[in-house]
């Protein structure tokens, strides 16, 4: 313990003594060259804790030579904080270093070295300029000889290349300053205003470097009247005395002016009246205007090109229906013709009809729009006409054609919203995405996907895209075809959807995976699955009220359930309960608009998976309209459904 303690104490003592005794001086800090041409100044700052008696010494050397550091004679033991090394650093082609250290009594600080320095890095300056006046032209001669003690340094020895000069011409009366670029040491400034005083200063510049420069002192000259006989004298002497005019000269009076007799009348009275004050424009204004015009022209041109580019980018070509749909379109058009002919279709525009249909279902929030209350009284007896599959799909427009008075009525009407003639729900199972006529709304959330009960895909297995929620005819959304299928198996035809009860719980059947099982959510509970609207939502609505579902599997055709529509009630192929799958399953039979239609009902009518989810409450509300189903009403139902779709898709582009 004791030895260690002793050692420790010794160490501490040594340390302290070293600190205090052989104290190294702190060297100068921030040692740098602050140089301008022919005046290369080395500067530094004293170190911390610098004492008052500190002295400094300076050394320098040339880079790349064998010579070591050389002392600077006139910077030895100085107390100032700067040293002029111009004399030792004259060669512009060489690189120099300098170093400084502090000396105090017997102690010296370590050397502090600068970075490299070359005379070409020194900031630019000129001695001055000499002006002479001829008429309204000023002749300027720059003075490039710089003096450093008894040295003479030529500016153009230091900066040999790409020299140029910025000439600042200031008009004394209003202080407007013009900047002119010149590349020679002698030049003229022409086209000045008569009877005006100008002050000129020059700033040197080197094009290939970014280097600091200092402007020369201003020299002023006054231009007399055009008719005056005053003529500038040559040489520099004339103006030197007047260099200090400054603002005072403006008045052109005072005795000092008389010294500048070469240019100024000493007495105001003798000045001729100003003549032609505005004839000549200041040099450079024409250039300024030209540059402004050209730059604005170029800018406009670029903007125009950019605008055209944007326009071309954003103009969309009309979207052509996919070829897959073309056949369906044809079919739908055919169907439409048929419909119109058969029903003496009203002139109403299908689309308008759609809107009409749409009105109703506002009240009920139940997804299947069974509109709670007045819903579907027809639960049982309603029967949708059996539509052939393609007819079904085309119902939209066709339905309209039928005089969808029902749509306009408060009935929800099952507006089978087949996208007007877009889809032809041909038996081909392919789901056809149908476009809502109204908008070419591809981007609308209502991806009414194909209404046709396609067996395939649209059945995004009950994943009715939320966008299509409320889409009556979302073929794609198809009522969870998969689910539907399951359901179908399980579901017996219940006759009319409970929806008629009006309280259709949405999402009755989570198992179905129908997001929207609202439609299916008939009060019947599981039975509501029947109602799985496999077909267009309109059908759902229909199903709610009056659709008689007769699934192919379920041979029970509840025709009796259908309301006495009078028309031959043929079970439609709509399989409310079952999605795509076996088309034959459900046939919503309701008042068929016409026998032929019914005949066309094919089991696979509802192939298109039809997602109940697309039914929003609005649609469900239309279900009450089912009650008014009749052949005509069938159309209206369609229309309603379609309109519901429209309405639902308010937020979508529809």
């Amino acid at each position, binding site marked *: 313990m004791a030895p260690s303690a002793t050692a420790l104490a010794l160490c501490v003592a040594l340390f302290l003594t070293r600190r205090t005794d052989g104290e190294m001086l702190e060297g100068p800090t921030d040692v740098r060259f602050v140089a301008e041409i022919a005046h290369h100044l080395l500067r530094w700052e004293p170190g911390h804790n610098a004492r008052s008696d500190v002295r400094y010494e300076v050394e320098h*050397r040339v*880079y*790349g*030579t*064998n010579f*070591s550091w050389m002392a600077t004679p006139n910077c030895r033991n100085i107390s100032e904080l700067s040293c002029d090394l111009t004399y030792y650093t004259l060669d512009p*082609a*060489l*690189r120099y*270093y300098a170093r400084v250290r502090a000396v105090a009594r017997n102690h010296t600080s370590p050397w502090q070295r600068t*970075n*490299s320095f*070359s005379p*070409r890095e020194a900031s630019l300056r000129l001695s001055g300029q000499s002006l002479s006046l001829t008429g309204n032209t000023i002749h300027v001669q720059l003075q490039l000889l710089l003096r450093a003690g008894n040295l003479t340094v030529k500016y153009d020895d230091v900066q*040999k*290349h*790409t020299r140029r000069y910025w000439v600042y011409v200031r008009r004394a009366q209003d202080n407007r300053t013009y900047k002119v670029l010149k590349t020679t040491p002698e030049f003229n400034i022409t086209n000045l205003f008569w009877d005006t005083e100008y002050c000129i200063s020059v700033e040197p510049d080197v*094009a*290939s*470097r*970014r280097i600091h420069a200092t402007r020369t002192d201003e020299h002023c000259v006054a231009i007399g009247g055009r008719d005056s006989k005053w003529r500038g004298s040559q040489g520099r002497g004339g103006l030197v005395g007047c260099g200090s005019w400054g603002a005072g000269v403006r008045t052109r009076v005072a005795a000092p002016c008389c010294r500048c007799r070469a240019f100024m009348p000493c007495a105001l009275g003798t000045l001729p009246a100003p003549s032609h004050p505005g004839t000549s424009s200041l040099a450079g204004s024409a250039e300024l205007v030209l540059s402004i015009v050209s730059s604005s022209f*170029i800018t406009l*041109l*670029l903007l125009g*090109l*950019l605008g*055209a*580019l944007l326009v*071309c*980018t954003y*103009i969309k*070509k009309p979207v052509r229906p996919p070829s897959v749909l073309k056949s369906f379109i044809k079919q739908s058009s055919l169907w439409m013709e048929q419909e119109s002919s058969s029903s003496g279709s009203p002139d109403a525009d299908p689309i308008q009809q759609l809107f009409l249909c749409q009105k109703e279902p506002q009240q009920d929030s139940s997804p299947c729009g069974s509109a709670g209350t007045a819903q579907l009284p027809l639960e049982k007896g309603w029967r949708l006409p059996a539509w052939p599959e393609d007819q079904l799909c085309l119902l939209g427009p066709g339905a309209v054609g039928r005089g969808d008075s029902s749509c306009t009525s408060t009935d929800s009407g099952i507006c089978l919203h087949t996208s007007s003639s877009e889809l032809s729900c041909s038996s081909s199972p392919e789901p056809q995405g149908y476009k809502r006529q109204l908008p070419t709304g591809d981007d609308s959330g209502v991806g009414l996907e194909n209404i046709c009960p396609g067996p395939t895909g649209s059945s995004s297995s009950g994943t009715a895209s939320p966008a299509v929620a409320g889409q009556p005819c979302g073929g794609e959304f198809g009522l969870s075809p998969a689910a539907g299928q399951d359901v179908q198996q399980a579901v017996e035809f219940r006759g009319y959807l409970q929806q008629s009860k009006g309280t259709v719980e949405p999402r009755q059947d989570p198992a179905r995976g129908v997001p929207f099982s609202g439609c299916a959510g008939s009060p019947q509970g599981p039975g509501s699955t029947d109602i799985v609207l496999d077909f267009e939502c309109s059908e759902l609505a229909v199903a709610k009220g009056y659709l008689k579902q007769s699934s192919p599997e379920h041979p029970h055709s509840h025709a009796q359930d259908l309301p006495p529509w009078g028309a031959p009630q043929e079970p439609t192929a709509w399989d409310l309960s079952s999605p795509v799958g076996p088309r034959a399953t459900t046939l919503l039979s309701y008042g068929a608009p016409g026998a032929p239609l019914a005949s066309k009902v094919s089991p696979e009518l509802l192939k298109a998976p039809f997602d109940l989810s697309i039914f929003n409450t609005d649609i469900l509300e239309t279900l009450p309209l089912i009650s008014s189903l009749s052949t005509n009403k069938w159309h209206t139902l369609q229309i309603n459904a379609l309109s519901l779709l429209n309405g639902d898709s308010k937020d979508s582009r529809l």
Partner: protein
Amino acid sequence: MKGSNLFLRLFSMSCLLNLMLTAGNKIFHFGPCRVSISMTEIRSGFTAIKDDIQARDPIRTLSILSYPHSLHKVKSSDRCCITHHLFNFYMDKVFKHCKTEDSYINRKISSIANSFLSVKRKLEQCHEQNKCMCGQESTEKFKQILVNYEGLNVTSAAIKSLGELDILLDWMEKSGIH
């Protein structure tokens, strides 16, 4: 869309044209060879790192480019040859060995190297067109430069050569601009 493509091309061309017009390139004459060099760009890049790079070079008694006035008094006909050799030297032996730990400096070095690359290509074209004939004197001078370079270890030599870039640029200005 054809229309938009066309406009896009027009637009980009006009922008490029604008940029080119405003670029500060100068034409250098090394003998019969005319080369366009953006001296301002190279200098500004070098000035940003000059102090740092030169501080990394502790050897002040030896210079690679300016011993003894290697680049002085080069005949006009030899200037292209020496310039060509020097640019090859910098591209092959200097820039690639000058990796520092500071990414800013590395970026600046890369930009200088890019500018040098384009100049080197033009000089090679001149060489292929027989505009860069090498005389005896220029060959000797370049050999001296190589000797100076090889007298140090690779990294130190590279850093030193990079620090002497201003000497090279000054010389180029002196000999290339009439």
